[in-house]
């Protein structure tokens, strides 16, 4: 059952991810990206990381992508024009992609030769465990990240104020 669900949502994620690139209209791409986020959340759920799954949907699908859609709607961006591809892209695009995927698969096989995936076997994904981890062993990275985000917010405000003056 878990394996079937994994394959269903993995395929949805990959198809949506390809769709993000293939679609010519920004809104279609953005909605495809929401599909990727949603299916990733289901994959997290299958692995037993329920808090991460909820956070994935709330933060990425529910907040960040809504902002993306909002900005696209606000700018009223139209359909992109397909420009003629250069000869190099036409000739080397597909072989290079296949080669890249092959190399990634090879290294994953080399680095984790015997690691098995246990669906739902991971028990550290609850809210309590994540809270203990964030404020215990990972306190410093957590705080540094929050300061990084604060700097980004301040930078955005500074840029916006310059426009206003």
């Amino acid at each position, binding site marked *: 059952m878990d394996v079937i669900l994994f394959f269903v949502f993995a395929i949805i994620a990959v198809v949506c991810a390809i769709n993000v690139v293939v679609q010519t209209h920004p809104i279609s791409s953005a909605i495809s990206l929401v599909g990727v986020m949603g299916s990733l959340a289901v994959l997290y759920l299958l692995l037993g990381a329920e808090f991460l799954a909820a*956070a994935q949907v709330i933060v990425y699908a529910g*907040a960040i992508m809504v902002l993306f859609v909002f900005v696209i709607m606000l700018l009223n961006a139209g359909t992109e024009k397909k420009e003629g591809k250069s000869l190099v892209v036409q000739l080397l695009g597909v072989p290079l992609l296949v080669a890249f995927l092959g190399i990634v698969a090879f290294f994953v096989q080399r680095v984790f030769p015997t690691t098995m995936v246990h669906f739902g076997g991971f028990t550290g994904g609850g809210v309590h465990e994540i809270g203990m981890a964030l404020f215990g062993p990972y306190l410093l990275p957590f705080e540094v990240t929050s300061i990084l985000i604060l700097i980004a917010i301040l930078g955005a405000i500074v840029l916006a104020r310059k426009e206003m003056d």
Partner: protein
Amino acid sequence: MGDLTNQQFYFLISVVKVVVVFAVLMTVLAYLQWVERKVIAHIQVRPGPYRVGPHGLLQPLADVIKLVTKEDLIPPHVSKPFYILAPFLAITFSLLSISVIPFGPPIMVAGRETYMQLANVNIGVLFILAVSSMGVYGIALAGWSSNNKYSLLGGLRSCAQMISYELPLSLAIASPLLISNTLDLRKLVDSQNGSILHWNVLHMPFPQIFSFIIFLIAAFAETNRVPFDLPEAENELVAGFHTEYSSMKFASFFMAEYANMITVSCMATLLFLGGWVAPWPAEYGSSFVPVAIFAAAGVIALYHGSQAKLKMDKLTFPAFGVIFLIIAAIFVLPIVQTWLLPLFWFCAKVGAILFAFIWIRGTLPRFRYDQLMGFTWKFLFPVAMLNLLVTGLLVALRP
């Protein structure tokens, strides 16, 4: 029923629960609109729907037939895939969150224990937040795909509004969670067991009265209700994001709005008002409150029936009076009391909040758009933050 295995039993009971919850929810959705029209009409001193059935009681049925049989127009200038997708998204996400809401304590069915809840997830609160944060796509896409400036403006407004009010909403939800120390909706109610003083809204160390008010204000904005109904402000935007929709697609948005109202009211009840817990313990007579209420309603209906001027009322008022008296009699039976009483208190609290929704719609005028945004970012968000910090501090200091 003795020869059923556990698995068969749970499958069967789940199917029954899904059917019951769906049927009740759909009926409530239809009749909530009747209640809203009636209440607003009485606030404005007019009778409201009156023609279809006694006191307009069959009006929802007539509305449903009208909406289903109407021609389903798809305007030629719309972006078709998203135009069709949008109402589906809106209704799916608004109905989905009902599935994790518990309506009562565990009950015994055929010798086995089961909850009055469709599915229990131990991150129930986060699940509802996640699902409701996805609901904005329905409105945003409807506005955009209609290819109409009014719809687009409505969609944009609702996007901005829902993102902004989600922050105070989440912060207001976080504070009672600190006190209850769980994300499981059932355990949340268990932690408020006892009397009204144990409900999170009055629970020590820091009564969550402020976060309750913030939650309600943000919930009004999240469900696009008056005074925050700018996405569908009639005098500015025709009908806002659903201007181009007709028939069942329009009905989907309509149902989604009311379903969201119900979800938000259930959330407020579970988080702040103790869910199905009675306001005071049963040994002080709280189990006789529903009996008294229904008996009083029955007596009043009978009295009005005897005084009625209209011919129809002479029949309908006594009929409803007898029905109310029968319900009052059912509440006295000890067999059903174990599950009917919690259900009554849950419905009473949800109903009170839904009434407040309608009441405020009949009372307050609409905000201006800049006021709406300034209110949440400059007032509601800092207050919710402060409330969370104070709650956190007091919970940490709690012995």
